[in-house]
């Protein structure tokens, strides 16, 4: 085997050593991946030693191996959860049949699109976050950023493994395409809108990992039900990593919120900005922005693609087992569909959408509920600090750019607005350039000292893997 494509460099449980086809594909792809990482990965930290977790096997011991590593030398691996013996398809028209170990020809294009769309988000988020290291609030946070980044890189590997192994030449081309697109580049943008939004400050990073990675969680949960077994097993393993990303987001926002409350209490007018913190109203605006962008990622409320993914047993619902019926036929989903009314203000029309066509919305429902949990924790911290403020998730109609609400305007409560009303009021709800500039000014100086923490957030209660918070998680090389 080659010096870069072997089971030592690429930890795996897919018998890479015996798989000539996969070896050949990866030999061409791996160097291009590393090149992409050096070009588009975290800028300015490629030589540093970072205390990272590497998955070296799927068992309990192996999936979380910690050590210092230079990121370009990170051992990105390929892991699938162990197969479930005699697994049967759990939903859609092929329900009850044995799961597929190869791609059924008639589903090839659909399945490829699903995998490419998911795969594209992984390198995209690395690109979006590549400049954040230069403004980090602590080495602890810097390390967390890089941990998320290398794992998104591994998620890319996971999708590329499927493309290489099951989709022939097309798959290899798509795998290259995943390295060619660039977040925010108008000529070769990433496929989904939110993955072209710049993530320019750490508040956005925490919001992204809380809200946008949570979309990832639900997409992965839905794909984990797939009748195409390799996809189901791949995504199941990815979910374990995704949980950590959301943890970074949830605790990150929590630490900001707690610090903000502390700073408010130090100030006579409860003015957090005056004390060098991030005021709660600004936090709310970033919640509004990232939450609404992430809602878009679920796709149209009424979607024939969603229906055919479900019908073809390719993409189910999150935790399909928990639903009473897995065919989803002859059932409707009641929806309030907006239509442009008088003066350009939307009105609503009740519509009964066939459940399969509403699968994106079903998944979004779960997401909305799940998103609320962390918000409750943030609000609890605010209340405990004696501050009267509540962070609220905006209505899912607010600031949407795909689906039935796209092109129409609503306030955060979901009340219809005319375009003029929206233009006049949108800066109450969405981050303004002034907000952005304020955050940039707060974060202009990175914190690279192991025992320091930026003023605008609290230190975490614990370090990583039993290490103290002050541990030198990233060893900078001059």
């Amino acid at each position: 085997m080659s010096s870069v494509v072997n089971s030592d460099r690429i930890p795996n449980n897919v018998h890479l050593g015996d798989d000539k086809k996969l070896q050949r594909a990866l030999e061409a792809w791996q160097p291009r991946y590393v090149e992409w990482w050096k070009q588009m990965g975290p800028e300015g930290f490629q030589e540093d030693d970072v205390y990272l977790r590497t998955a070296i096997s799927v068992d309990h011991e192996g999936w979380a191996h910690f050590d210092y590593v230079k990121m370009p030398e990170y051992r990105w691996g390929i892991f699938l959860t162990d197969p479930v013996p005699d697994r049967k398809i759990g939903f859609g028209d092929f329900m009850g049949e044995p799961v597929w170990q190869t791609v059924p020809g008639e589903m090839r294009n659909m399945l490829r699109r699903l995998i490419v769309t998911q795969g594209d988000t992984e390198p995209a988020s690395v690109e979006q976050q590549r400049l954040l290291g230069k403004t980090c609030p602590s080495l602890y946070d810097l390390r967390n950023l890089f941990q998320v980044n290398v794992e998104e890189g591994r998620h890319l590997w996971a999708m590329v493994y499927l493309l290489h192994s099951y989709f022939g030449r097309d798959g290899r081309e798509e795998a290259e395409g995943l390295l060619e697109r660039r977040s925010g580049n108008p000529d070769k943008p990433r496929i989904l809108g939110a993955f072209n939004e710049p993530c320019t400050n750490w508040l956005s990073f925490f919001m992204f990992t809380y809200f946008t990675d949570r979309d990832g969680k639900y997409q992965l949960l839905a794909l984990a039900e797939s009748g195409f077994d390799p996809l189901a097993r791949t995504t199941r393993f990815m979910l374990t990593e995704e949980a950590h990303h959301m943890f970074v987001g949830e605790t990150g926002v929590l630490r900001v919120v707690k610090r903000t409350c502390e700073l408010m209490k130090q100030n006579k007018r409860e003015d957090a900005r005056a004390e060098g913190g991030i005021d709660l109203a600004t936090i709310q605006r970033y919640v509004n922005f990232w939450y609404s962008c992430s809602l878009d990622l679920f796709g149209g409320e009424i979607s024939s693609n969603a229906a055919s993914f479900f019908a073809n047993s390719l993409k189910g619902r999150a935790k399909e087992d928990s639903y009473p019926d897995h065919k989803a036929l002859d059932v409707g989903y009641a929806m309030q569909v907006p239509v442009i009314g008088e003066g350009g203000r939307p009105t609503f029309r009740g519509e009964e959408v066939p459940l399969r066509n509403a699968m994106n919305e079903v998944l979004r429902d779960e997401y909305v509920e799940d998103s609320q949990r962390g918000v409750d924790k943030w609000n609890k911290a605010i209340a405990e600090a004696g501050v009267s403020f509540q962070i609220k998730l905006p209505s899912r109609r607010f600031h949407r750019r795909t689906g039935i609400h796209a092109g129409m305007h609503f306030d955060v409560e979901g009340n219809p607005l005319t375009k003029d009303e929206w233009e006049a009021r949108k800066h109450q709800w969405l981050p303004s350039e002034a907000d952005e500039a304020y955050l940039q000014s707060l974060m202009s100086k990175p914190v690279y000292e192991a025992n320091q923490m930026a003023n605008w957030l609290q230190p975490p209660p614990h370090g990583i893997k039993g290490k103290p918070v002050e541990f030198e998680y990233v060893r900078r090389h001059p």
Partner: protein
Amino acid sequence: MEPSASSASHAKAPDPVVRFETHPSRYKHWKLSFDGAVARLEMNVDTDAPLRPGYELKLNSYDLGVDIELADAVQRLRFEHPEVKVVVVTSGQPKIFCAGANIYMLGSSTHGFKVNFCKYTNETRLYLEAACSESGQHYVAALNGVASGGGYELALACEEILLCDDGSSAVSFPETPLLAVLPGTGGLTRLVDKRKVRRDLADVFSSLAEGVRGKRAQDWGLVDRSVPRSRFDQTVIDRARALAAATPDKQGAGVALPALEVARWEDAGKAGADYRYVSVKVDKATRVAELRMLAPDAAAPATAEALRTAGADAWALRAFRELDDALLDLRFNHPTVGLVRLLSRGDAARVIEADRALAAQAESDWFAREVLLHMKRVLKRLDLTAKSLFAIVEPGSCFVGSLFELTLAADRSYMLGEGDDEGTAAFVGFSPLNFGPLPMSNGLTRLASRFLAKPDRVAELAEQTELLSGPDALDAGLVTFAPDAIDWEDEVRLAVEERASLSPDALTGMEANLRFCGPETTETKIFARLSAWQNWIFQRPNAVGERGALTMYGRPERPEFDWRRT
């Protein structure tokens, strides 16, 4: 192609009454703007303004109403804007150029409406193509988003296709893999015949729902150039200006096309429309219509300048615009009419005079040329009308020159078989327009198509300057029957009644096969091969059955096919 699934429905909506006249000031779906020699035709379909209720025109999908505006724009650009040399066709919506014909409109339309709709859109695209080849108005498709199905077919009708390379803009024919039908608006034909895409690549492309993007689209010949988004708009402008610079100027101002004046009436089972030079009378009970054209009622404009002054009022333009409108009215608003009696009345000499003047003026004047090209298009529309056409050549009629083309277009012609002893004979005769400027879609004149077995006959007839009476015309093979005065009424009545009793489907098929003898062209392939297969597929359970793909599109279940290959 992802419009709201909820508007899908099994029930067929009644055919709406359709009118074909519009004006840029009333467009709902297109914006026509001008920058010197470059016009911009921007598609921005109003979701909530379908031709009839029951579907929404999402994602720049189109219905007949959208296409009527397009046809109007193409026509007006030719007559009203001679300064325009390049027309950029593009979309006013982000990320989507055009998603093609609206699927829910197709799904809820009657078969007859669907077929007529497809034919009309095919004609519109051919007109657009003809504007490039005949009138020095070059259409450039600027695909600033996804062009799927009929969207890509519209692009294929343009002379050049520029595709934005942004990772998502693609060209595609999802009809077969998603809907179990064909890209039937010229798509398959133009792919291999016009763009000469290799047939195996065309096969791959036409079965790939998501289509082809970027460099590969260019490599396969599906588009002329794939251009990065950041340079796209400028490249389109540069290309349009370069094309314009290489196109000669036309002298003289444009000629406005005012709305046609028409009085429509309805009375006890009969209906009709009276234009200035055309009248239509429909008998709903017998399913027979009468279409009468009048000769010019004044001397022909002697010079190109005089013709320009007459403008849209010139007989050669006005009469054929009226004929065009009448044909569309018959096609769409009188679906049960099976037979059209073609009649004419007036001074034959005036028709010949007008034809001669036009033929001469068209050699050097763009407007005269446009009038002649328009005449050609309208006569093709007549050839393609799925109704039996019987020309009735009576005394007082004026089937000569351009109007004799109606007789030649007819499936049969009946001419009074009397000589001119009593001054009661009927006559036919020629003008220069019968010998070249008005070819059919097979590329031949109607005379050449008629004398396919004796090509020399056409040249001999060109020498014939006298009008021919019934017996002579029959002798010359110019009419089908020439009953004498005693038999005339009965013969004609019986022929009409007999014809009207035959199966409309079989007649449509029979006529379409017999009318277009001789060579194949892209046009004949589109109408005969592509449309015929499409119309067959549109009737098949695999597309429109209860579990057919077109029926199931956007619905939660998957289609089911009958696997027997036919």
